[in-house]
């Protein structure tokens, strides 16, 4: 897709970044102690912290990823919204207060409070670093994706800009400025998503999504001896025919010197125009038969039928939030499905008419019904995803460290409730933003991540610029939080606590800042390296690793007296190795390696259903074997304290 760069977008973006930097300068002068750097001195108000939680949590995966997934696969994208929010229930009811009581600056502190064990420090700081880095990669990739349409710059410059600004923020001020950046960003994201949803509902359902929407043509066909031989319109010349497994037939036709791809209709009476991307013999990429700059690679996604009270209509006018969903159920939506024609070095996206009722129930992406071809493994994959989402949230280090920025347990609890309310409200909006993008002709079939911002552009460049700048700040804030968590793992958990380097408060802050700088540079390199990789895939990976490595350790520490230091350490290691191992051997990764995905040894993309129980079993077995170690544990940090 090619995008026009807007002066508005640039102006708003620069203003936003300047605001963030000014805030950092302001708080930099106040941060002198280690407690200030890692935990904002434990003085943040619970209301501010709650919205900052929302800012931390609503990362590129939520705003860009979920909206995009709903736009392309309907309700299955919303499963992520449900799971991500449900994860907060675990955080609120189980983790928030005890963790606040146990820890000082980091998640490792809390785990280690009862044991003072070297093996826990090493395993927990390692898992913090690994989960944070997995989480960092998609944020950086997402930042690069955003900068392309927003500022017209190459992807790698976007990554470098984000990396540099964040290193600056974190290395100057730490958790205080990170918190306020997240607070502002979280609040703005929710406000402008609400405005966008009001636009969507006010616009209602419409068969014509705007003046410039491309009308896809159909051409009649001629068969000779049972074979496709040409078209009924003599201005088209048949060039090439391919029939793929599954019986879909695609043909390329030339007209006025331009070759375009078409799909044969199910009744074999006409060819229907598609979107296509072809790699030409000289290596250049042609979009719909022309270079990208010709602008022929259209934004898509539209309604083909709207039925209201039993009658077909062209448009509905403004609709309420519930009426919008019930009316959408009686529509037909043209979704664009991707297929590779390897022999022609072409990727095509053809129209697939989908009943609106299928868009608002699960099943388009996750095959769970027999009708959609479900089997044991596809169903297990669905359960595994829901499990990892549920248990992943309260095991994410950059979320956990936020509990140390508030003054008391009750403030930790209240800030979690503010977070749940804000995040829950936002996730309900994702349903409308995703469906709105699906039907208003704004989808970029090459980048589902841009669905939300491009929908905003449909309603006006001003709204697009603001939403994009906020989305960019979303990435900025989340990356800052992750880098603070990573620098805490290196400087506080590893150098200070594990290696026992003697450092005064000033040196501790210096070590934290240097670690932040190192992790930041590493993140920039990974962001450039992983360009083009699916953002939500990597975030899912981080959730699964966090749920497997950290959550069994936290829960057993809090609720099972026989838990030992070695049990915790081995459970963390098992969780990391098994979850990352299963992902590396999954069908999706096999496809990325260029291998046949049917050869993958474990036909699961989501590892939680295996790796979480495995980590629990290891924790229980090792703890029971090493009971004698518990004689020396520090008893005063017990639940009843």
């Amino acid at each position, binding site marked *: 897709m090619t995008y026009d760069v807007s002066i508005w977008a640039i102006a708003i973006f620069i203003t936003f970044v300047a605001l963030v930097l000014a805030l950092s300068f302001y708080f930099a002068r106040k941060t002198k102690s280690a407690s200030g750097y890692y*935990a904002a001195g434990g003085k943040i108000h619970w209301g501010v912290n709650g919205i900052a939680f929302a800012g931390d949590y609503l990362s590129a995966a939520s705003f860009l990823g979920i909206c995009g997934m709903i736009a392309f696969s309907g309700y299955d994208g919303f499963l992520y*919204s449900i799971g991500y929010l449900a994860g907060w229930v675990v955080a609120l009811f189980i983790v928030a*207060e005890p963790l606040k009581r146990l820890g000082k600056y980091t998640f490792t502190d809390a785990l280690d409070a009862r044991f003072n064990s070297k093996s826990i420090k090493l395993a927990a700081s390692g898992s913090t670093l690994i989960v944070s880095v997995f989480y960092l990669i998609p944020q950086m990739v997402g930042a690069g994706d955003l900068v392309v349409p927003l500022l017209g710059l190459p992807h790698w410059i976007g990554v470098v800009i984000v990396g540099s600004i964040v290193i600056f923020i974190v290395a100057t001020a730490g958790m205080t400025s990170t918190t306020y950046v997240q607070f502002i960003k979280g609040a703005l994201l929710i406000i402008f998503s609400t405005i966008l949803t009001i636009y969507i509902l006010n616009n209602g359902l419409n068969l014509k999504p705007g003046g410039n929407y491309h009308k896809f043509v159909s051409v009649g066909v001629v068969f000779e001896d049972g074979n496709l031989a040409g078209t009924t319109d003599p201005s088209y010349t048949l060039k090439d025919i391919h029939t793929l497994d599954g019986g879909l037939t695609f043909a390329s036709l030339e007209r006025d010197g331009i070759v375009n791809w078409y799909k044969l209709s199910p009744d074999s009476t006409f060819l229907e125009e598609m979107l296509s991307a072809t790699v030409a013999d000289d290596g250049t990429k042609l979009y719909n038969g022309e270079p990208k700059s010709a602008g022929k690679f259209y934004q898509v996604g539209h309604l083909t039928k709207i039925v209201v009270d039993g009658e077909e209509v062209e448009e509905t006018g403004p609709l309420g939030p519930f009426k919008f969903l019930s009316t959408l159920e009686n529509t037909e939506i043209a979704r664009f499905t991707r297929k590779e024609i390897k022999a022609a070095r072409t990727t095509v996206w053809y129209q697939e008419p989908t009943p609106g009722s299928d868009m608002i*129930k699960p099943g388009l992406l996750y095959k769970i*019904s027999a009708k959609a071809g479900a089997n044991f493994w596809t169903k297990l994959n669905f359960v595994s995803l829901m499990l990892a989402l549920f248990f992943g949230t309260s095991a994410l280090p950059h979320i956990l460290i936020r509990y140390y920025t508030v003054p008391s*347990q009750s403030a930790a609890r209240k800030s979690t409730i503010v977070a749940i*309310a804000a995040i829950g409200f936002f996730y309900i909006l994702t349903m409308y933003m995703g469906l709105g993008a699906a039907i208003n002709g704004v989808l970029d079939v090459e980048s589902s991540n841009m669905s939300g911002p491009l929908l905003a552009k449909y309603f006006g460049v001003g709204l697009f610029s603001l939403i994009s700048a906020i989305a960019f700040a979303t990435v900025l804030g989340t990356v800052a939080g992750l880098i603070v968590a990573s620098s805490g793992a290196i400087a506080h958990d590893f150098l200070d606590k594990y290696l026992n380097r003697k450092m005064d408060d000033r040196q501790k802050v210096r070590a934290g800042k240097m670690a932040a700088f190192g992790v930041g540079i590493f993140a920039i390199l990974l962001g450039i390296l992983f360009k083009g990789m699916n953002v939500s895939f990597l975030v899912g990976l981080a959730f699964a690793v966090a749920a497997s490595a950290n959550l069994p350790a936290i829960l057993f520490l*809090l609720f099972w007296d026989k838990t030992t230091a070695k049990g915790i350490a081995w459970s963390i290691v098992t969780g990391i190795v098994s979850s990352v191992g299963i992902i590396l051997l999954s069908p999706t990764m096999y496809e990325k390696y260029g291998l046949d995905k049917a050869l993958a040894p474990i036909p699961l993309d989501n590892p939680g259903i295996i790796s979480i129980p495995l980590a629990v079993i290891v924790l229980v077995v090792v703890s029971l074997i090493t009971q004698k170690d518990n004689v020396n544990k520090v008893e005063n940090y017990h639940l009843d304290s």
Partner: protein
Amino acid sequence: MHGPAAKLGADNAAAKKAKLGVILFFVYLIIYSGFVVIGLYDPDLMGAHVLGKQNLAIVYGFGLIILAVVMGFIYNAACTRMENKMNNKQGR
């Protein structure tokens, strides 16, 4: 060993609050599991109208989100009451 970043007063209500938290967690877990089980064993049921013209997927999905918020408020109210009573001081 080190203490928390901010000084925390003794919390006599901690054990009772933890117990309530665990109960509420299991209540939510059961309701969340119900959603997963329906998706698994009777996915077509997700398309059935259950409330006005809304299907089960929308009602259950939105319901899970709203329920989390409502349970959060209930939990907070109960915890604040326990803290006030057992720690013998006004709410923070």
